[in-house]
């Protein structure tokens, strides 16, 4: 179980304090696929990066199965990160390693023998449907294929939690759908907990059971996906569900009428 308790993150910049996260509390159950949606700048990336302590929260706690990540030593935290892996919008594969070696990478980090790592990586590439691309380099793959390799890499250490930060935002709808199906299959097979960060409502609808709507660093609303999207209570959720009615209105001057 993942528990976020009163997470707050402030950045100090030249322009002053930025309150990226304000007092966020969420609980995500084991095996759940949980969505976090919000407009650009809402604090989604900051929030996921706090979950694995890539970003230290200014206040509050992240508890994974009751373990407070903020209280761990650097070495303990590194070990724990093998349990909470992450995929990214830009895939972030190592460009000078072929696919197989990319999947081997986290296993190498953990000290697994090269041969065992290669065997396991081969198996994982098969799981994501890319057994034939083991020797290919990331630059030779499409975006969707690169994300599959990244998923295989993220699964290599058999994590309990998979964090996806805009993992499908760079992909076309068809590829998005196939990546989401893959994630759901893996979730069903392994019981991995998945947190999906996105600004796309259809991504949440397709795969998540519950969703939190993030607005300006705070949780505006949280609940079952169907519930939240069919009956949005907060303005932030309504803005996501009915974007058209919130679009900036045409005025006489910048409409077509002046010609």
């Amino acid at each position: 179980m993942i528990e976020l308790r009163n997470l707050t993150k402030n950045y100090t910049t030249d322009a002053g304090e930025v309150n990226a996260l304000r007092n966020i509390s969420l609980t995500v159950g084991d095996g759940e696929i949980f969505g976090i949606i919000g407009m650009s700048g809402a604090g989604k990336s900051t929030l996921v990066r706090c979950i694995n302590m890539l970003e230290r929260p200014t206040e509050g706690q992240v508890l994974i199965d009751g373990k407070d990540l903020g209280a761990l030593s650097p070495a303990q935290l590194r070990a724990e990160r093998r349990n909470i892996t992450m995929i990214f919008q830009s895939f972030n594969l190592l460009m000078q390693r072929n696919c197989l070696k990319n999947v081997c990478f986290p296993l190498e980090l953990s000290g697994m023998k090269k041969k065992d790592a290669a065997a396991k990586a081969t198996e994982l590439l098969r799981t994501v449907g890319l057994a034939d691309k083991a020797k290919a380099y990331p630059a030779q793959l499409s975006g969707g294929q690169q994300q599959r390799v990244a998923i295989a890499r993220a699964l290599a250490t058999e994590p309990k939690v998979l964090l996806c930060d805009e993992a499908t935002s760079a992909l076309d709808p068809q590829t998005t759908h196939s990546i989401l199906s893959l994630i759901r299959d893996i979730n069903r097979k392994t019981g991995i907990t998945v947190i999906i960060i996105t600004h796309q409502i259809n991504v949440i609808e397709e795969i998540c059971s519950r969703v939190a709507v993030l607005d300006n660093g705070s949780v505006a609303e949280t609940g079952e996906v169907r519930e939240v999207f069919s009956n949005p209570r907060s303005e932030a959720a309504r803005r996501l569900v009915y974007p058209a009615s919130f679009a900036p209105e045409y005025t006489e001057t910048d409409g077509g009428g002046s010609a």
Partner: protein
Amino acid sequence: MIEKMFESGAVAEALEILKNEFPLALWETFYVTVAATAFAVLLGLPLGVLLVAGEKDGVLPIPKPILHILNVIINLLRSVPFLILMIMVFPLTRLIVGTAVGTTASIVPLVIASFPFVARLVESSLREIDPNIIEAAQSMGATPMQIVLKVMLPESVPSLLSNITIAITTVLGYSAMSGIIGGGGLGKIAVNYGYYRYKYLVMLLAVILLILLVQLYQTVGTRLAAKTDKRLKHKK
């Protein structure tokens, strides 16, 4: 000067010198540049890594004053003209090699002059890396050392090779200069015959060989860099 250069006596003499002295000089220049560059990389690579990894938000932050001192030392060494630096390090050269003149002795000032340059080149190579890739490695629990050795350096190999090529051609230029005060190789021939004895044809030949050597280094370096770069899509 041009006509005199190609008088039959001068040509015959130049060919004689070409046959007797150039093979050794060419070898000396080659050996000095490769050895000096190798040592410069040995010192400059870790230093360059430190400049990037040691920053405040680098993977292995080091105290700011230390980073500052390193930068100042590098800038100081880089701003001393090579010939003057060579004279300044005579005592050090004597300490390490036993003498301050000769081919091998010239390696010491060449290394001192070029390792700060190499550090800067390494720094710029490492800064080209996408920070997201480093963050991804951190998210997988990589230690700072693992990030340096398994991510930063391997990911920048093609760029490092291009930059080391720049370094070795620069070292070649310095090594030719070192011929003026005791260094060996093609530079010494060019100075001895061209400057002191007005045998311009010999000097010209030495310069041509230096140019060819630069071409050789550049071609090999460029090929290696392209060959190791897996970001290029067209390869099999």
